[in-house]
């Protein structure tokens, strides 16, 4: 689940523009779901019962199944990612579709359904959607036909092209006319020229790339290895590696959250037989490192609400029923524990 800044450079321009236009642009009241926390509930395999919940953190009010409530039909998919771009929210179901809703009220604007196998994430460049997709499994449960699907139209439509990429692409990040692809299985970052719809450049990176993020004006990539995690930034003029750093951390799960003061939180699990899950807190720029910042069992989602410095953990409860969301304050005291949907895996913090 990510906010996508279409372009870092353009983002700064946008901020400048928005400031300069404040007086002449009438304030639009925020929609019901443009404040608070959106909770992404993945749903259980075979049930397609993924859904989005909405939490008002100040009142504790929780609204369940907001897609279904807004559209009078179930989401009917396993919710893999939520991507917010301008007024639209893209709900990516790894069961083969993308639902596009109005971010304010969750009313459906369109879908991408045909032509997708196991979509994972999405990026927007101009009026095109780029959707990472594992492709179908083969006999050995490998995914040699992974691709990036291209769709013309911000409200979805048909897949017009599939750009073959390395196995199991995950996160995407749009920068200018380029789309960065986190190729998780083969340790690659593929950069797609969005105009030509071809791979422009491929970079080898350590570990399994999971997620891009922006920090201090740079584009970073979070990757995980068996016993360490990796971060690297990119020169955005020639698309080469800028900084690479790492941290010894075994069994990282790929969940990452960003706190205040550029602090980063990642979760890991000791795996069999003890399954002790923990969150490690650190900074890429300072010597801050707190291993086992918090330890729990069954962490499935990780988030950080910067507005009130709250760490949020989600627990799947084995997918047997509802998941649980727990909110901790800065001193790690539990301030809220609430039952949410099935398989809560991520959050989106709205204004």
């Amino acid at each position, binding site marked *: 689940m990510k906010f996508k800044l279409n372009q870092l450079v353009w983002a700064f321009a946008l901020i400048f523009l928005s400031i300069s236009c404040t007086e002449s642009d009438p304030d639009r009241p925020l929609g019901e779901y443009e404040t608070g926390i959106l909770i992404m509930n993945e749903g259980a395999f075979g*049930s397609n019962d993924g859904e989005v919940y909405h939490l008002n953190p100040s009142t504790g009010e929780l609204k369940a199944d907001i897609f279904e409530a807004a559209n009078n039909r179930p989401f009917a*998919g396993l919710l893999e990612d939520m991507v917010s771009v301008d007024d639209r929210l893209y709900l990516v179901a790894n069961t083969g579709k993308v639902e596009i809703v109005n971010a304010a009220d969750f009313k459906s604007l369109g879908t991408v359904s045909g032509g997708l196998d196991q979509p994972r994430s999405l990026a927007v460049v101009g009026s095109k959607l780029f959707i990472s997709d594992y492709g179908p499994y083969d006999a050995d449960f490998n995914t040699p036909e992974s691709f990036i699907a291209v769709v013309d139209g911000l409200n979805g439509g048909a897949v017009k092209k599939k750009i073959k990429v390395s196995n199991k692409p995950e996160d995407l990040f749009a920068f200018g006319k380029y789309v960065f692809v986190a190729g998780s299985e083969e340790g690659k970052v593929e950069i797609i020229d969005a105009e030509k719809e071809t791979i422009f450049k491929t970079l080898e990176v350590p570990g399994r790339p999971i997620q891009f993020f922006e920090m201090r004006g740079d584009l970073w990539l979070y990757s995980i290895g068996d016993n360490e995690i990796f971060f690297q930034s990119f020169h955005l003029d020639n698309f080469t590696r800028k900084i690479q750093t790492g941290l010894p951390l075994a069994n990282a799960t790929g969940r990452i959250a960003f706190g205040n003061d550029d602090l980063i939180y990642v979760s890991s*699990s000791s795996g069999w037989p003890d399954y002790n899950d923990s969150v490690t807190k650190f900074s890429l720029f300072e010597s801050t490192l707190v291993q086992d910042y918090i330890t729990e069992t*069954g962490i499935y989602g990780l988030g950080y609400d910067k507005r009130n410095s709250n760490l949020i953990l989600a627990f799947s409860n084995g997918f*047997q029923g509802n998941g649980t969301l727990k909110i901790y304050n800065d001193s790690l005291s539990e301030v809220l524990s609430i039952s949410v949907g099935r398989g809560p895996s991520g959050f989106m913090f709205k204004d």
Partner: protein
Amino acid sequence: MSLLLWIGMFFGFQPQSQDTVLLTPVEVYAPTLDRFTQGQKIKSYSKAELNTYQGRSLGDLLQETSPVFIRQYGAGMLASPSFRGTSAGHTSVFWNGIPVNSPSLGQSDLSILPVAAVDQVAIHFGNGGALFGNEAIGGSIHLGTKLSFSEGFQGSFSQQFGSFGQTNSYLKSSFSSEKLSSETRFYRESATNDFHFKDLGQAETPIVRAQNSAVKQMGIVQDLAWNLSKTTQLKASFWYNQADREIQPVMGSNTNDIQSDQSFRMAVDYFHFGKKSILNLKSGLVQDNQLFNQSENNTVQYFLSGDWDSAFTPKWNLKTGLRLNFIQGELSTYQATDQRVESYQSLRFQPDENLKISLNLRQLAYLDQFEPFIPSLGADWDFWKNSNNQLSLKASIAKGIKVPTLNDRFWEPGGNPDLIPEKSQSGEIGLIWQKTGGISWENSLTYYRMTVDNWIIWIPKGNFWTPENIREVQNQGIEYQGQASTELGNWNITANWAYTWSRAISTKGIGETDPAIGKQLPYTPEHQANGRINAGYNGFSTFIGTYFIGERRVTSDGQRTMPSYQFFNLGVSYGNLSLGKIKIPLRFQVNNLFNKDYQVLYLRPMPGRSYQFTLSIQL
């Protein structure tokens, strides 16, 4: 003849004198289900009932006519049974006395057990661990084929056409003399299954045709029996079934999965009938090859058993035996073997004609682990009777066990070799009122309680899922059944009805704060009911049947519930049409008469009204 007379005595049918004339044709000996099941409930299906389900699956039969809830993933798709609030893995399925559940999955898919492949169906409710062994916790399903001697040649052919591209063919031929009996049957069932449904997974929820849902299966069943001498009999049954299915995707998905299931089952029995005992040596083979897309999972099970069943006094019966089971699995992610040894003893005491008490014990060992004795104790007591009425009481207590499946223990990644067996204990009490006369009826009411401990569930741990002995569940319920028959003029009227109330509550889950604790298990309806009226007159017969499934929660603690639904079937048949000696019975049936739009499981579409026409030719 003496052999068969003896069998009659053995079963307790007391002949008035030694010169009782045996009816012909006579049947091959088949150990009956109910000899040591005192205090427990059994439902057996008549041949006429099974006939109306020709062309349909065992899952359909049980769903529409019994308290068992069938979790159907679509028409012709996976159908798994839930007895008394337990899971599919808590039901053992037997065919001619050998267990046929997949050792890797620990369950059977009832949608690929066609009713047409068997002659006998009986279901046993509650813990049957002592009598039947592994997995008989919620209940067990007993399928069988049945042969007769001295009937000469018989043959029949049936062709069935139905909605959604259904085309079924059945061919059966048999020959029997006094010494030898042989029956061969072939069946082929197919359906394009492209029914219309409202697709909730698409914008605007359009009405669409089902995609990737075609099914076909074919099979051959061969039964043989020889009377080797007056006191010995050899019986062999072979069943090959192949099901090729497109797996209909859940709404919102667009998968094109295909699955092929090939099963070969064999049971060979040798019986020696002594003066007061029967010796049975049995060998069996169950081979399952499943290809899901290109992922192959193969298992084979070998069985060898022997038991001795003795009526050493008129009041005491004893059965004792040993069963060996060797399992080989070559699954897509692992290879494994398993071996099991079971010894079992059953004792029945009948102090007088109104009271029967049975005690059953079984000891199971798998790999190097010995499990404690699994006992059951039950009694049937006809405590009051007059010329037209009889009241009976049934009561039993029992234990059951489920050994972790091969997948539970060995699946890569995640299989947990440290799992221990699931265990269950239960008790039930039932009252039966039987009345004969102008209107004959039977009403029975059963109350049961059950606990299942160490219930295995797969949960995500780190980067993969793994099974653990986590859950504990308490089940209780009431099962009411009634049936009546009478004659109205020349019409024969029969009716049956049933209602089930079932509570299955988690008492232990994932941690003390598991929100599922104290709540009903998912997809476990609290209320179920069914009813059926049949009327027959001079070869013509008709029936109307209905069943009701109450609300089910998708998850124990979630908001989402699946609405209840009621379903009606209607059928007519005429059996007196003939051409010379050739009989040509006709049958027409409407399923889902009122075109009810329903889902058994969330987002799994089910078909609306469908028609089925059957033409048979019997020689």
